[in-house]
């Protein structure tokens, strides 16, 4: 479950205060799929980074999986992300010059698991997303579809309970976007909580989306 209580986030830039979020209160149940839409600059990404404990609210509380993440030190926030959050970015944000294996290794590094288990986990997601034979290939030589599968595999490798996606289909052709949506549907069936921030209309009338929330100027429209 994700709960935001009267959350505000302000930035100070060149002595000017920018209000990115203003008293946002929101509750997302476990297993729910929520799409957040809104114009550019309306505060979608800021909302996601608060849910992922990547940033702290200026005021208010953020509670995810019963943890008050707005109150965590950096080590704990990182550990929380590691355990609970799977992030999928716009344009994947893979490490292009590294191999698929190394990309998948990245979320496992802070866990410092025994070598055997680390390899085991990587092998499992490689198989699940049909990219075993590409394990040693550099990401930059992969096709768009393969890159997408690596990005999803990377965000799911620690089996997170919450999946956050920021503009996941912004640069995808129709076929890839469809494929991504089918992955989301699969996750929904596994009772994962999913939050997608997007202005891609593709998401607005999907049958498995429970709610579409609209944001404007840092507020949630009701």
């Amino acid at each position, binding site marked *: 479950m994700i709960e935001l209580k009267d959350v505000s986030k302000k930035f100070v830039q060149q002595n000017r205060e920018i209000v990115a979020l203003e008293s946002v209160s929101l509750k997302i149940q476990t297993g729910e799929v929520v799409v957040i839409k809104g114009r550019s600059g309306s505060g979608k*990404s*800021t909302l*996601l*980074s608060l849910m*992922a404990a*990547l*940033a702290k609210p200026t005021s208010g509380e953020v509670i995810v999986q019963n943890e008050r993440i707005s109150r965590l030190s*950096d*080590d704990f*926030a*990182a*550990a929380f*992300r*590691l*355990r609970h*959050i799977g*992030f999928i*970015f*716009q344009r994947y*944000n893979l*490490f292009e*010059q*590294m191999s698929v294996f*190394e990309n998948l*290794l*990245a*979320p*496992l*590094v*802070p866990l*410092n698991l025994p*070598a055997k288990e*680390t390899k085991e986990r990587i092998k499992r997601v490689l198989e699940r997303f049909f990219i075993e034979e590409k394990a040693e290939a550099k990401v930059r030589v992969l096709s768009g579809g393969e890159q997408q599968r690596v990005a999803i595999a*990377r*965000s799911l490798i*620690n089996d997170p309970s919450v999946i956050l996606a*920021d503009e996941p289909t912004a640069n995808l052709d129709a076929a890839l976007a469809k494929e991504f949506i089918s992955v989301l549907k699969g996750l929904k069936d596994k009772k994962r909580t999913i939050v997608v921030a997007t202005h891609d209309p593709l998401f607005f009338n999907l049958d498995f989306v429970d709610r579409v929330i609209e944001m404007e100027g840092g507020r949630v429209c009701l």
Partner: protein
Amino acid sequence: MNFYLLDFAIASLLLEKRKNLFVFSMLFLVVFLAGSFLFTASSMRQMTLHAADALPEIVVQKRVGGRLYPISMETILPIVEIEGVASVTPRVWGTYTFDAQGTLFSVVGVDRYDYLYGDSLASVRKSDKIIQGNGVAVGEGVYRVLKSRFFTKEVHLLSPKGEMLIMPIVTVFPKSTALFTNDLLVMDVQKARKVLGISKDEASDLLVDVPNPDEVDTIAQKISLLSPVLHVRTKEQIRTVYEEMFDYRSGVFLLLFTIVLATLFFLTSERLSGLSHAQRKEIAVLKAIGWSIRNIISVKFYEGFFIASFAYFGGVAAAFFYVYVLQAPLLRFVFSGFSTVRPPLELTFFPDWSLLLLLFLITVPVYFAALIIPAWRAAVEDVDEVLR
């Protein structure tokens, strides 16, 4: 130790090849510079100390007002009478100014019974050629100077009284003894007296042989009590003076070297501070997938560790090559001066591990210190950029 972190460190090093290559070369160069200096100094020091081993236990000179004078033969008697002294030998030697440029030779007088100049002169001592033939044995450096003036068979020397002495060259010391013999002219003691202007009842200094090393200090003290003009030095004192001289030079070098270290610090720190867009993005993604600030700082240190070990060992190897294989061209002048006849001695390796430790401590920590702030900056950078 997290090996995956190391793996990641290497991968992200490759992300910024040019920047990291620059940082590596800086550290490498600094290690090489300091290493070359320290190795040369240490090698020279060890060789000098080695040479000092051949010295007699006690040397007595006459010194008035800070200047040396020939010592009277009459001084020998009271010294021999001191208990514990086995023998006293007068020595005749001195410097001879060869030409208007001020080229200096060391003139040493020997006689048949001479045995106290150390092993280096063993070959000369055995053959009586010098004395019988009224000839001289010359060092490698002396011979070179003479040859350049077209004297290949004999030496022409002018005594203080204006008398010209012509002596045939009977032998040139082998190169391997250059440390001791390079600027030497060895001749019969009577001839040496003439060249140096030392009369028959005087000597340059006296060598005192003391068989029991424990008694050396007390005997030295007793000798200096004989007369206020007597200047007494023990072998131990001379060794300490040598040690101090090299320590002093290396110390001064290190003081000057702080400027290089400061440059290393600022250039490295400056180079590492500017984060490229790719690096920024990498760090932000890492944080989003669960890395903490401390993980990122660690990975930066692992990167540094990697660069530092390569630069350090590479620099040490290069310094070794420069000093012991190439024989430290240019640098050796710092120690031997620019005099034309100073020894072209062979630098040989003496293992001294504390030197490697010293070299490590004066270079690598400076590099890591320069790394701290950029690493921290990168790690605490806000991440929202990549999420847009």
